[in-house]
Every structure is written in structure tokens, then in C-alpha cells.
């Protein structure tokens, strides 16, 4: 069976998967990012208790259904806080994604897969990810810690004997790590990410406007007028939600300062994590970080003026990596290449 999988492997690409809470990205070696879809699965279960469940949609299609499904369909996000919350659904989702990447192939794909895991994840959670990838048809599964992949993807000199600090703000978790000589010197993971930003906006709107908005709307607000640091200009946006008192949809206007206020709590959590990391970093490496600066990756880096906030809070230069959304997946792909070249599991963790 193993031999057969190896044979099938000849027809499959090596893949690096950033299995994120919000988005799953797949990087195929030599082809770049081949898939970038929301980690959402829509499951259909027809009425009757014994009816079989079937996957209705995965990715973008499923995300459109979030919060808009009838009784027999459930759109769920199988990952929470960067780790698997629903094992079987995650497996199915991965399977779909891997197949999608190998579309049109005659043979069943059996790629080598490298998956990024949060550095704060437990052994059980890592094993769950490994097994679901194996169940999805992967020939071999390697795991790499997210900040390491992010740093490689951002083009940081991870193999130098110099400290590099990377902050990866994902959908479910934020990871901060200091890397030197291909290894993680310090790492911490806080379960704050893009989702928490959305929740904070939902809560803020409910508290201050007495109006309920959905997660998708909250995300839209975050993208359009969210910011992490007071800017020169104030942006406004019209939002529709259900008024709790009247029970009918109402529209109202939000501005960027309000959203800034709403985001204070999750942002301070991230800032706190960075400060703690700086405290815990050995002095030599801390000096390197102070000289070169902190690099932010992940979707959270797209929040306006986040770098400004961190600069002001830490007094260190902060830069946003190029194409921060795909850093982790690209870094994983490069790590696969490096592991091949050097013939060892430089970055892989169990």
C-alpha cells in the first residue's frame, strides 16, 4: 500500500497547506499559491434522523451560505483557534481542497504535504491535523510551526545567527516568535485573531447601537473602515442590522474611530503578547530585533495602521511583510524545498 502511494506520489505535487481558522491556502511547489479559500464547509443533512450527511459545498461557496442556511444545511467552520474543532469535517474539507488542486488528474492524488500548526497547539491537536491530512490522501505529512513558516515566507534570514521577530496574526490565533539559526528561540500564541476582531465589532455594535449584525457584516466593516491607530482621516460606512428593540432591520452609520474603539481589547491582547515576547527574548537577540524590527504577517497585518500601533507601543521598527496573507503557505513551500535540499527535517516538528 505504501509503495502504491509512493507511485501515485509521482503524479502529485508537494503541497504546503496553511490550514487556517479563516482561510486555507495551498501552495504547490513550483506553481505558487494554487488555492485560497475560506475554511468553511456546508453540510447537508436531510430530514429524518438516520439520513446521511453529505458535503454540499466547501470554501467560497460554503462561506456564502454562512448564516443564511435553511434547517437542513449547516455551514460550519471546522477549525477554531487555529486547531481542529471538527475532525471529520476538516478531513473532508482537506480532501476536497487537495482534489481541487489536482483537478483533471487521471490518478488519485497522493502528495507530500506540509501543514502549518500554531506553536501553541497541543500534541493531541497536532496529531489530529496530521491524521486528517493523512485521511485526506496525503502520502506523508510534515508539520511546521506557523511562525517559522511565516518568517521564511516573509523572506527573513531565519538561518542566520541573528534574532528575527515575526508576528503572525491569523484568523484564530496570533503567534509571535523569535527565530535564529533555523530554530524558534521563543514563541507564544494568543488565541486572538481576525475572528476576535469581528466578534469585538459585533459586540460593540450591539452594545452601542442596540443592533445585531452578522459576522460577515462585521468582517466587511473591519476591512473597510477598521484601523488600529488613530489616523488623520475618519472613514464612514453605512451598515444594516436588526434592531434589538424594534425587531426590524435598520441601517445606521459607523465611523472608523468607533471601530478603533471596538478593537481596543483584542489589539491590546496582541500588543501584550509582543511585549511579553520582547521581555522574554535573550538580550543578544533582542538587540537584533531592535535593530531590524518586527515583521508582521498574516491577514491581521492588513488591518490599517497596525504597524503604527506596534511601533508606538514597542518603540521598535515594525514592517509589514509583502503579501502577508500568503506568507505562511509560501514559507511552508519553501521549507519543503529546503528540507529536500538538505535532506533533513530542519523545520518539521512532530
Amino acid at each position, binding site marked *: 500500500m505504501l509503495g502504491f502511494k509512493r*507511485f501515485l506520489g509521482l*503524479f502529485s505535487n508537494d503541497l504546503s497547506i496553511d490550514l487556517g481558522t479563516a482561510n486555507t491556502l495551498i501552495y504547490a*511547489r513550483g506553481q505558487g499559491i494554487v488555492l485560497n479559500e475560506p475554511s468553511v464547509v456546508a453540510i447537508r443533512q436531510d430530514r429524518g434522523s438516520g439520513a446521511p450527511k453529505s458535503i454540499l459545498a466547501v470554501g467560497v461557496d460554503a462561506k456564502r451560505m454562512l448564516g443564511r442556511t435553511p434547517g437542513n444545511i449547516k455551514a460550519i467552520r471546522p477549525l477554531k483557534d487555529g486547531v481542529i474543532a471538527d475532525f471529520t469535517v476538516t478531513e473532508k474539507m482537506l480532501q476536497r481542497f487537495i482534489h481541487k488542486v489536482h483537478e483533471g488528474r487521471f490518478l488519485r492524488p497522493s502528495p507530500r504535504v506540509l501543514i502549518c500548526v500554531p506553536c501553541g497547539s497541543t500534541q493531541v491537536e497536532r496529531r489530529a491535523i496530521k491524521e486528517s491530512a493523512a485521511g485526506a490522501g496525503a502520502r506523508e505529512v510534515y508539520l511546521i510551526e506557523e511562525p517559522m513558516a511565516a518568517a521564511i515566507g516573509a523572506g527573513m*534570514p531565519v*538561518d542566520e545567527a541573528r534574532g528575527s521577530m515575526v508576528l503572525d496574526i491569523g484568523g484564530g490565533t496570533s503567534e509571535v516568535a523569535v527565530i535564529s539559526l533555523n530554530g524558534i528561540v521563543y514563541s507564544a500564541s494568543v488565541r486572538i485573531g481576525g475572528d476576535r476582531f469581528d466578534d469585538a465589532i459585533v459586540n460593540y455594535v450591539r452594545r452601542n447601537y442596540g443592533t445585531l449584525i452578522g459576522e460577515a457584516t462585521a468582517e466587511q466593516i473591519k476591512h473597510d473602515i477598521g484601523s488600529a491607530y488613530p489616523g488623520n482621516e475618519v472613514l464612514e460606512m453605512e451598515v444594516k442590522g436588526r434592531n434589538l428593540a424594534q425587531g426590524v432591520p435598520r441601517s445606521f452609520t459607523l465611523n472608523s474611530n468607533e471601530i478603533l474603539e471596538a478593537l481596543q481589547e483584542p489589539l491590546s491582547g496582541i500588543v501584550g503578547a509582543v511585549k511579553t515576547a520582547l521581555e522574554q527574548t535573550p538580550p543578544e537577540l533582542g538587540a537584533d530585533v531592535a535593530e531590524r524590527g518586527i515583521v508582521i504577517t498574516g491577514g491581521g497585518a492588513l488591518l490599517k495602521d497596525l504597524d503604527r500601533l506596534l511601533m508606538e507601543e514597542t*518603540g521598535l*521598527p*515594525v514592517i509589514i511583510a509583502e503579501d502577508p496573507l500568503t506568507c505562511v503557505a509560501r514559507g511552508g513551500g519553501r521549507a519543503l*524545498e529546503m528540507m529536500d535540499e538538505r535532506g533533513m527535517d530542519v523545520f518539521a516538528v512532530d
Partner: protein
Amino acid sequence: MTEAAETEPEAEGGGIGQRLRRAREARSLSIEQVAGQLFLDRSTLERLEREDWEALPPPTFVQGYIRNYARLLGLDPERLLAGFHPPQPPPAPGAGRSPARRLQPVLGWRPLLILLVLLLVLGLAWYLLPLLQQRLTSARAPATGVTVPPVPEAGAGAASGPEKPPVSTPAAPAASSPVPAGAPAPAVVPGSTAGPGAAGAGSSPVPAAPVPAAPTAPAAASASATTGVPPSEPPAATAAPPASAMPAATTQPAAASGRTVPIELDLSQDSWVSLRDARGRRLVHGLLRAGGHFRYQAVLPVAVVLGNVHGVTLQVDGRPFPLTGYNRRRVARFRIPVEPAGTPGRSGPSD
């Protein structure tokens, strides 16, 4: 301030560093002020404006610095970065910047080709193996069956043909003439050893030595042996067919090996026929049509396969060869002469 930056014509000429410096000076900002805003060292900023890339951190960082600097000055960072070509030497050596070497586009045809070749080889092996096996058994059979080598062309044939151990020469006469006692037996030896030369010339007309009945065979053998005439062995050879019928004569046929005899086939029905003689030659191997009459010269022993035994009449050395015992089956595999019981290669009518 940003509006001023937008309207102000960007200092187009020069490199990134010069443009940044001019923009900074246009806003009358000192390098310390900028360093304070960006939390960068004064020296780093000066290197940036000098475009001293070697002294600066890897491009990832430098791009970030330029972007932040540009935003501070109200310049368009992307436009500025368009002119930023990171110097090649500084890029971190370890960042795995050698993808091209490994990027084999996941071989579409190569494994398929390998697979195809493999299949071809397997198919060939599957086809050839039975043939090889057949050859091997035919090589082994003469060795086990007691054979006398004096083939007409044995001088050359025995030496080259690996399947003829000439060691059995002394045994053969003894076996061939169990009835006549010691006297004729040694006499056969010169006859058979003289055989090659003599028989070589007159091998085809051998049918001239037709002593039909088995019981008389020993007598004939001794008689001919004393005269030293080539047909010293035909009696034994002709004794072979009856041997299958008469258990008493089972030891006889061995003596017949190694001689060249005519084999005639008459077909009343279509039949698949294969004749392979002692030298491994295929005399015939294929379908013969009904009504045909075929004649071959074969060196004994001959492996015979008849696909439709009921449609074939076989004559060996001018005498009919009994094809009885195949009532139930159509395919007959046997050897001429019929091997004694117990030989592994045996495939008589009882087969």
C-alpha cells in the same frame, strides 16, 4: 500635510534614496525627526538615503523601511518600490532561494514511460518463460533418459549440443541387449561408435533396417552388430513403439536415442503439431491441415505434441507409432522413444 505631498511634484530623478532625501528636505524634516517617527536608527536612515544596500538588513526589511518612510513623507510607497531592485549579494543565503533547481514540473510522462517499459518487459517475460522452460525440460529429458550420443553429426553436434552426455555410451548397449549375453554386447560398442561416420552418410535410408517384431529385436541387434553394419541400433529404435504396449520391453527404447529417424505424419483432420528433436530444433510447430502428409528427419528423442491426436497417424522409422490411450483427450504429449516409467519427463499415454 498629505495634500501637500500629493500635489508636490515628486522628485523623479535619481534613486530611491535620493528621492526620499529630497522629499524629506522638501518637508524640512531632519533625519533625527524621521528616525524618531520610524523608530529606526539614524545610521540606518542615512544608509537608506545613500542606498548602501550592503550595509542594510535583508531586502524584506529594507522594503518595509522604504514603505514606512514613504508613507511618512506622503509618497506612494508602491511607486517608489517599483524602482527598488534588491541587490543580489545581500539576500540571505539560507532563505532557500534556489527553487528553480528543484522545480521539476511533476513529471507527467516519465513515470508513465517507465511503467510502459516495465509492462513490456513483464509481457515479454511472460511470453518467453514457458518457451525457456520447455527448452530446459527438453534439455534435461535426454540427460535422464539413457541416451547414446552417436548422432550422425554427433562429431560436431554432441560437442556443441549441451544436452547430450556421451557418458551413457557403455550403458546403452547393455540396456539395449538384455537377452543376448556378454558376447554380442561388446560387439555393439564398436558398431555404435563406428556409427557416426557410417550413419552420417546413410542416415536417411535407415528404414532399410526394419526388423519388425520386438522379440526378434535382440537377435537382429546381435546379428547386425557382428557384421558391424550401421543399422545396429534400428532394432532398438523400432522396438520403442511396441515398448509402450509391451511392458516387458520398457528398457528397450533408451537405446534408440540419438539416431536420426524419419517421422511421417498423416493428417485426416486438422491438428496442431509440434515436433522438437534432441538438438532442440523445431521441426514443426504449428497447425497442419487435414489431408497433409509430412515427413521430417529427427534426432531421437523427439518431443511430440499433437493437438488433435485422433486426426493424426504417426509413423516413426517407417513403422506406425501407436497413438492409443488417448481416447479421452485430444491432446497428446509424449516422446519418441517412449521413456521408461518413472522418468520425470515422462508423458506417455497415461499422462
